[in-house]
């Protein structure tokens, strides 16, 4: 199934290296020990390269290139920490933070500090910067949607769509800053095609779409990720054998996820695997 693999040589920040053909710049950076921020990229999704926080400078390219999607090419000269790169990453982080609440986008926090992003500088006297300001959508007992946290990374759309679930309950609607992840005509989720697999939630990097259980615990001030344990086991329902990561806090299950790097489920689950643990502890 694997053919003879050729390698390409490239230089990243002055270091020569070889990677297998087809390897993305992002992966090449990773193997060179260079940490690159990403938001819209995930192991189990097709790169959409929309967040632009992973951009790098490639010699000969007029604009910066998204490292998550661009394969390394022979002779490529890449800079991951040039002034141009730092500037664009900083601006992308500022843009994101100026419009939505990144409180729960924990992986971004260190990058905001590192690139010295000044999120507050977009407010003007008598003219505060426009933000997304919508009431949290709570339409059932399993999910909540908080668009004030949505960075439009498309991950949920991909997971709901042809990268995994093929249900297509949600898509991007509208344009520009008014674009939203939406069902048709914004109908409530239970009226939509949604089958509550939770795969959108598992890929959301900012908490914009969340398990209701987590939302309730957070609201009660009882969500303590640093005290949670994760146990790998296998789903108790059908015979497919999806691996589960059971998150427990104080000896209680608080959510179920699935490891993205396992061949059976690739990080995805169905409604039974995602929520079917509740019989183990009927009330959370």
């Amino acid at each position, binding site marked *: 199934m694997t053919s003879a693999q050729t390698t390409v040589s490239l230089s990243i920040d002055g270091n020569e290296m070889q990677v297998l053909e087809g390897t993305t710049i992002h992966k090449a950076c990773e193997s060179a020990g260079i940490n690159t921020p990403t938001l819209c990229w995930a192991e189990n999704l097709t790169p959409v390269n929309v967040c632009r926080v992973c951009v790098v400078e490639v010699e000969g390219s007029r604009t910066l290139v998204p490292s998550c999607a661009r394969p390394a090419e022979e002779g490529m000269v890449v800079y991951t920490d040039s002034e141009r790169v730092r500037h664009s990453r900083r601006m992308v982080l500022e843009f994101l933070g100026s419009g939505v609440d990144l409180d729960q986008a924990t992986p971004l926090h260190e990058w905001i500090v590192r690139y010295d992003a000044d999120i507050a500088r977009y407010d003007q006297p008598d003219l505060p910067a426009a933000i997304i300001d919508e009431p949290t959508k709570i339409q059932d007992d399993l999910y909540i949607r908080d668009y004030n946290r949505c960075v439009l990374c498309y991950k949920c759309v991909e997971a709901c769509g042809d990268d995994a679930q093929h249900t297509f309950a949600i898509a991007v609607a509208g*344009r520009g800053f008014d674009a939203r992840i939406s069902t048709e005509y914004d109908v409530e989720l239970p009226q939509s095609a949604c089958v509550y697999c939770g795969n959108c939630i598992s890929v959301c990097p900012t908490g914009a779409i969340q398990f209701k259980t987590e939302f309730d615990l957070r609201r009660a001030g009882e969500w303590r990720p640093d005290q949670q344990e994760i146990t790998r086991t296998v789903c108790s329902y059908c015979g497919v054998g999806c691996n589960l990561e059971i998150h427990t806090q104080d000896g209680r299950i608080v959510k179920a996820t699935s490891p993205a790097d396992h061949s059976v489920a690739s990080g995805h689950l169905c409604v039974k695997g995602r929520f079917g643990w509740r019989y183990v502890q009927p009330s959370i």
Partner: protein
Amino acid sequence: MTDLHFTSDRADSTEIEAVAAAIGNETVVVVETERLIRGGKERRNQSRHLLLPALHALQRAKGWITPGGLNHVADVLQVPPAEAYGVATFYEMFRTVDPGHSESVTHVCVDAACQIAGSDMLSDELTAAGSAVHRSPCLGQCERGPARFVQGVGTADEVPADAELFVFHQQGDPSLRLLKRIGVVDPGSLDSYRANGGYVALDRAIEMGAAAVLDAVADSGLSGRGGAAFPTGVKWRAMAAEEGRPKHVVANCDESEPGTFKDRVVMENDPFSIVESMTVAGFATGAENGWIYVRGEYPLAAARLEVAIGQARVAGLLGPDVAGSGHTFDIEIRRGAGAYICGEETALFASIEGFRGEPRSKPPFPTTHGLFGQPTAINNPETLLNVLDIVALGADEYRSRGTEQSPGTKLLCLSGRVANPGIYEVEFGTSLGQVLEMAGGLTGSGELRAVLLGGAAGSFVGADSLGLPLTLEDTRSAGTTLGSGVVMAFTTDVDMTPVLIRIAEFFRNESCGQCVPCRVGTLRQHETLVQVGRTGSITADRRQLVDDMARAMADASICGLGHTAASAVSSALALGLIGGAK
């Protein structure tokens, strides 16, 4: 090919009939008997491109796309309703909220040329007279602003100005190449087209053979006229070398750059030239399929192209054996629905394919992964028009005009404060001052303050640039661009602040929203200019912010819209057109 879920809303018979009239009666899911039903991914993929025409039909039928109508189309084409809704909400011409009336809607252009020609006043007058008015981005009628476009409900769309006499200021000029037939030829007659030199190039191309046509185009030095100026010969050769099938030639007639209307004039007045030049492109590159993507606000252009294609088919100039060459080529027209971004080539592909008009990352490039992921040559109609002369006259003769690096002639769209706004064909190298003179010089009370070159995505040059030779190389070294050929003049009596605020608003509205630098950057740029408008000046830290944003948009956006969204604003600030002295 999926277990779609629909809300209980149903289409009514008007909508069902309108959709059938637009896309036919075939459905993706075919119930052969109660026990045998066909469907599947392949059938679904093959019909997805009918989504945009179907949405047009729904919009036309009811004045908005109703949930029931959307469900019907989604069911017929097996497109998930959420995706169909995402597509419908992408376009300016589609409404997904009940407007509460079924009147035609008058779109009034609010972009620069029309703005300074009084579009606000027109819009107020129409509203007062009881019309439903929609503030629209540039309608491509900058020579006759303030422009209107009437979107019909149950009736055809129309442009009121189309009823007026067409004026072409260069008519009869023997030096014209690209525009020689404008105003002369009958746009509805193949015979008239032939009588005016039509189809000489195709005959010549067939005689020369595809390889020789490719050589001639490469030797001519022709470059893309949509704004990016990529060498056409390189693009065509790369696509011709692709083995994949089918291959496509696409005419990018989604002319939406504010200030640009040249393609409309050509399509409306010399439609056969587009058909012929596309056929030559198809022959040269080995493509079977031609697509014309014409912006939705150009109903006359679409109608005349449709007629031309029909006549060409009848005459055997399109179809399975083009002009006896043995080559197959035919053309399908797609109407856009109001989205500037769809002029970006990969966004245009997505739009034809029935998806949101969101640009794709390049590489891969269209020559290998274009329309439907297949090899595609996509060209601006002006570029295609040049090919007719290159083939008919030969590359050497073609190069006898223009400069070494910018051979040939260029179509310019003169608008703003000039006496005779309109389309002009000039030799590359003509100076900006000469061009303004051709258009009858300035009009109004003031002196020349600035000229917007290349449209909203271009940049302003000051009154000291009248000597600038209009070539690719000279504009580039002057830090500006010819872009799509916009030359929009502003005199000192024009208040530039609202013009710049509107340009910023244009990008904010037209950003597809896909990538962060453009989605948020265009918003913040607009907010900053609104504040400049309020205070009349710009502080040092705001100025820094504008520059910071401009760099990030230019560097990190996915496509040309974001790359150029700050260009006009930056140049205006540099020239001191807004925000106080430079």
